[in-house]
C-alpha cells in the first residue's frame, strides 16, 4: 500500500494526485517524515488521522485528497503545514454529465459464485435474513396504543431484552427506603447474574417490532405520501412476514395511501396485513383486544417459515458510515466498498446514500453511471438537494460535526471523498429518490440525508436486508428489522467498545491485512449474519432505531 514497510507506516497518500498526506500515528513538530523519496519537516504536531500538505500553497490554493478537491486554503500554507479548520475552507469540484460508458475490471468472485446463505424466501421471490412481524401506527396519535401492544407482546412472547438495569434502581429504592441516602452515591451497575430472559414462544420468528414515529398528520401531503411509502417499504421488505397497522381514522396518512404504496411495490401483495382503525372501533379496549387476537393468530402462521439456501444475489446491503473519523475513508469504508463490488458481480445490491456526503465526488459517480438517464437523475436529485439546503440558509459545507473535525475530517468534501469509498468501484446501476424501493442489481445511489438513523431507516425501507455501518468514533445504532453490522475504522475503538462493534478493520491501518482481504472476511461475516447464525451487537442490545425522513433539510 505504501513505499514504507508495514510496520513503520506513519503516513499515507490516498491517491497519487494528492498534495496532502494523512498521519497514521501522532507525529511531532520538527520531525522529518520520509515518503516516496521525499522528506517533509513538520511545522507543527500532526495528530493521527490529520493531514499536512506536501507543497507550499498560496491562499485559495487547492487541497487534493483521494484525487479530488476537498477544500481551498484560507491563508498561505508552507510545505509540511498542518491542515485545520482555521486554514482550510470547504470547496468542491463542479460536475457535468458523463461522456462515456463506465469501464470496470470486476474482482474475481469464483470463490463466492456457488455460495449461499440461509434465508426466508417470500412469495414475491425476495429473500429475508430475518423473520419479523411489524406493528406500525399511521399517525403519532396511535403511539400509546402501540406502546401498550409492545409491552403486552414482547414480555409474554420472550422477545423482550432482559431488564438488566432494573436491579440497580431496585437497589437504590431499597437504600432510600432504609434511609441510607449516603450509600445512594456509591451504587453501581453490576453485570453479574443478569435476570434471565423468558423463553421464546415462537422459535422461527426473530421478533415482533413496533415502528413508532412522530409523523402521519399535521405536515404536508408530501410528508404523508413519503411516510406511507417508507412504511410500505417496510411491509414489503423480505424480513417482514406480516404487519399490524394502527390507524386513528382522520389523519393525513390514510390507510388507502398506504395500500396504494404497497401495491406499487408489489401488485400481487399477499402477506397478512391487519388494519385497525380506532374511530371505527367500539372502544379502545375492543380495538386493542382484537389487534392482539388477530396478530397472535398471524404469528402462529408466520412461525411456520423455514430458512432455506438462497443465492447471494438476494443480499441487498445498505452502506453507511456514522461517527466518522480520519481513518474511515482509509480502512472500513473501502473495505465495505469491496463487499459492494463483490456483491455487484454476484448480482446482489448495494445501496449508497447520504447525498450531502457525496458532495465533491459527484463527477466520479456520474462517470460510473451505466447510462446517461441514470446519471441525469443523480445530478438532478443532487442539485435539488443542494438548492433546498441553500434555501434555508444551510449548505453541505455545514455537514461535518465537531467530532468529525476533531478526528481529522475538516470539510464536507473531505468527509465525502472518504464516505464515497463505501460504494466501491462498480458501475452505478440505479438511482433512487426517497422513499423508493430498490430493484436494480448492482450499486444503487439513494437520496437520503447523512443523518445516521434517517439514512439507515431509508436504506432498509428500500429493501436492504443487511446494513454495513462503519464508525470511527463509535455509535450504537441499529434497525428494527435488518441486522446492522458495525465496523470500527480503528482497533482502539473495537477494544474500547466491544459491546457495539462487530468487526474491527483497524488491521488495514496497521498494514496487517489488505482492503480486499478484509472485504472478503466481511462478506463471510455477512453470510453468517444473514443466515441467522451470528447476531449483531445492535440486535443483542435491541437497538431499534427508526426515524422516517421528513424530507425537510437534514444533512
Amino acid at each position, binding site marked *: 500500500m505504501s513505499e514504507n514497510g508495514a510496520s513503520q507506516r506513519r503516513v499515507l497518500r490516498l491517491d497519487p494526485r494528492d498534495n496532502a498526506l494523512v498521519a497514521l500515528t501522532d507525529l511531532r513538530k520538527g520531525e522529518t517524515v520520509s515518503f516516496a523519496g521525499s522528506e517533509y519537516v513538520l511545522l507543527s504536531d500532526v495528530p493521527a488521522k490529520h493531514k499536512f500538505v506536501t507543497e507550499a500553497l498560496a491562499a485559495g490554493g487547492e487541497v487534493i485528497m483521494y484525487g479530488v478537491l476537498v477544500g481551498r486554503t484560507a491563508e498561505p500554507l508552507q510545505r509540511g503545514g498542518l491542515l485545520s479548520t482555521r486554514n482550510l475552507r470547504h470547496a468542491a469540484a463542479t460536475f457535468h454529465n458523463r461522456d462515456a460508458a463506465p469501464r470496470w475490471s470486476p474482482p474475481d468472485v*469464483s470463490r463466492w459464485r456457488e455460495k449461499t446463505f440461509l434465508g426466508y424466501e417470500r412469495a414475491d421471490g425476495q429473500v429475508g435474513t430475518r423473520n419479523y412481524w411489524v406493528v406500525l401506527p399511521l399517525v403519532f396519535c396511535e403511539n400509546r396504543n402501540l406502546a401498550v401492544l409492545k409491552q403486552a407482546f414482547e414480555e409474554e412472547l420472550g422477545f423482550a431484552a432482559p431488564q438488566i438495569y432494573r436491579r440497580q434502581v431496585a437497589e437504590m429504592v431499597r437504600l432510600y427506603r432504609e434511609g441510607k441516602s449516603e450509600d445512594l452515591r456509591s451504587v453501581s451497575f453490576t453485570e453479574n447474574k443478569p435476570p434471565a430472559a423468558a423463553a421464546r414462544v415462537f422459535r422461527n420468528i426473530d421478533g415482533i417490532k413496533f415502528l413508532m414515529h412522530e409523523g402521519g398528520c399535521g405536515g404536508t401531503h408530501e410528508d404523508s405520501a413519503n411516510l406511507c411509502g417508507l412504511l410500505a417499504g417496510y411491509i414489503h421488505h423480505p424480513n417482514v412476514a406480516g404487519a399490524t397497522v394502527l390507524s386513528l381514522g382522520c389523519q393525513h396518512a390514510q390507510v388507502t395511501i398506504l395500500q396504494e404504496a404497497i401495491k406499487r411495490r408489489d401488485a400481487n401483495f399477499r402477506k397478512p396485513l391487519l388494519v385497525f382503525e380506532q374511530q371505527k372501533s367500539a372502544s379502545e379496549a375492543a380495538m386493542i383486544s382484537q389487534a392482539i387476537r388477530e396478530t397472535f393468530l398471524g404469528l402462529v402462521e408466520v412461525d411456520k417459515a423455514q430458512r432455506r439456501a438462497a443465492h447471494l444475489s438476494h443480499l441487498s446491503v445498505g452502506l453507511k458510515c456514522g461517527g466518522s473519523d480520519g481513518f474511515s475513508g482509509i480502512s472500513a469504508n473501502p473495505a465495505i466498498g469491496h463487499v459492494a463490488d463483490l456483491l455487484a458481480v454476484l448480482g446482489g445490491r448495494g445501496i449508497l446514500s447520504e447525498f450531502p456526503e457525496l458532495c465533491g465526488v459527484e463527477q466520479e459517480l456520474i462517470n460510473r453511471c451505466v447510462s446517461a438517464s441514470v446519471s441525469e437523475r443523480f445530478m438532478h436529485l443532487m442539485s435539488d438537494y443542494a438548492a433546498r439546503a441553500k434555501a434555508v440558509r444551510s449548505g453541505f459545507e455545514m455537514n461535518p460535526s465537531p467530532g468529525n473535525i476533531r478526528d481529522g475530517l475538516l470539510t464536507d468534501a473531505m468527509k465525502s471523498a472518504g464516505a464515497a469509498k463505501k460504494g466501491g468501484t462498480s458501475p452505478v446501476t440505479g438511482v433512487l429518490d426517497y422513499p423508493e424501493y430498490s430493484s436494480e442489481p448492482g450499486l444503487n445511489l439513494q437520496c437520503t440525508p447523512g443523518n445516521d438513523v434517517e439514512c439507515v431507516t431509508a436504506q432498509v425501507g428500500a429493501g436492504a436486508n443487511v446494513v454495513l455501518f462503519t464508525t470511527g468514533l463509535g455509535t450504537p445504532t441499529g434497525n428494527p428489522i435488518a441486522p446492522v453490522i458495525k465496523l470500527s475504522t480503528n482497533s482502539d475503538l473495537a477494544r474500547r467498545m466491544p459491546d457495539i462493534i462487530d468487526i474491527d478493520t483497524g488491521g488495514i491501518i496497521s498494514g496487517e491485512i489488505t482492503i480486499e482481504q478484509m472485504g472478503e472476511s466481511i462478506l463471510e461475516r455477512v453470510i453468517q449474519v444473514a443466515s441467522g447464525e451470528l447476531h449483531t451487537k445492535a440486535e443483542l442490545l435491541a437497538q431499534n432505531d427508526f426515524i422516517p425522513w421528513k424530507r425537510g433539510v437534514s444533512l
Partner: protein
Amino acid sequence: MKLIRYLDHSGKIQYAAEQPGGAHLRIEGDLFAKNRVTQDLASIAKILAPVVPAMIWCIGQNYRRHADEVGMTSGDYPVVFAKGPNALQDPGAPIATPTRAGTEELDYEGELVVIIGKACKDVGREHALEYVAGYTCGNDVSARDWQLKKGGSQWCRGKSFDTFAPIGPCLVTPDSIADPNGLAIQTTVNGRVMQDGNTRDMVRDVPALIEFLSQSTTLLPGTAIFTGTPHGVGMAQNPPLWLKDGDEVSITIEKIGTLTNTVRKL
C-alpha cells in the same frame, strides 16, 4: 479449507473437503498424514465430530468477564482440566441428560476448539500455530452440581459424562483462519443469544495455551483443546438457566460455522 468427517451410505467413516458451492469431495488418506482431495462427491449419511481426539484438554476461566461472572479469578497459571474421550458427541446428535448419575444443573459453554495436527512438545508461542490442524466449535457441557459439589474438588467428573463434548460441524484449516484471535463466538439456547464474545478477549490466546500445555507434555495428533468460554453461561443467569429436555443449543464461531445439539432424556 473446511473438512468434515462423515459416515457414508455404506457405513464407512470418511473425510471430505467442502467446496465453495457447498458440495463435499471425498478425501483419500490420513487426515494427519498424507492425503489428497479426490473428485468423488461424498455420499454423506451423517456428519460426525471432525476428529476422534487422542486427548481432550480444557481451559477454565480464559475470558475475564466469564471468570468474573462465576466469581473466580484468572490466576498466574491457566486452569487446566480434561474431558474423557467417551464424552465426544457429533454435531446434530443429542446431549444426553445423565439420568443414572443425575443432575439438576446442566449447563452449556460455547468454545473455540483447537485440533493439534502434528505431535509437539515444549513448543514456543511463536511456532505454536504450525502444529494446528484446524479449528472447530465445541460445547463444554457441564453438570454444575457434579463439577462443583459432588466431584471431589475435581471438575473432570461433572464435565465427562457421555455426550458432554460435542464438537463440529467441521474442521477449518489454518489456511482459512490465519489468526484464531479475533473470531466472534455466540451461543444460543432455543434461538436466544446467551453468550456473545470474541476470541480476542481470551486471557491467554491460542499460541500461549499450546505453549503452556505442551510443556513436558506431548500433544498428540488429534488432541483437542477447548480454549475456554466467554461470559453468559447458564449458572450465571438470575435465576440460573439450566438446560432441560428439548432445549436446542447452538454455538457459532465466525469463519467456522454452527454446532447444534439438542438436550434429550435418553
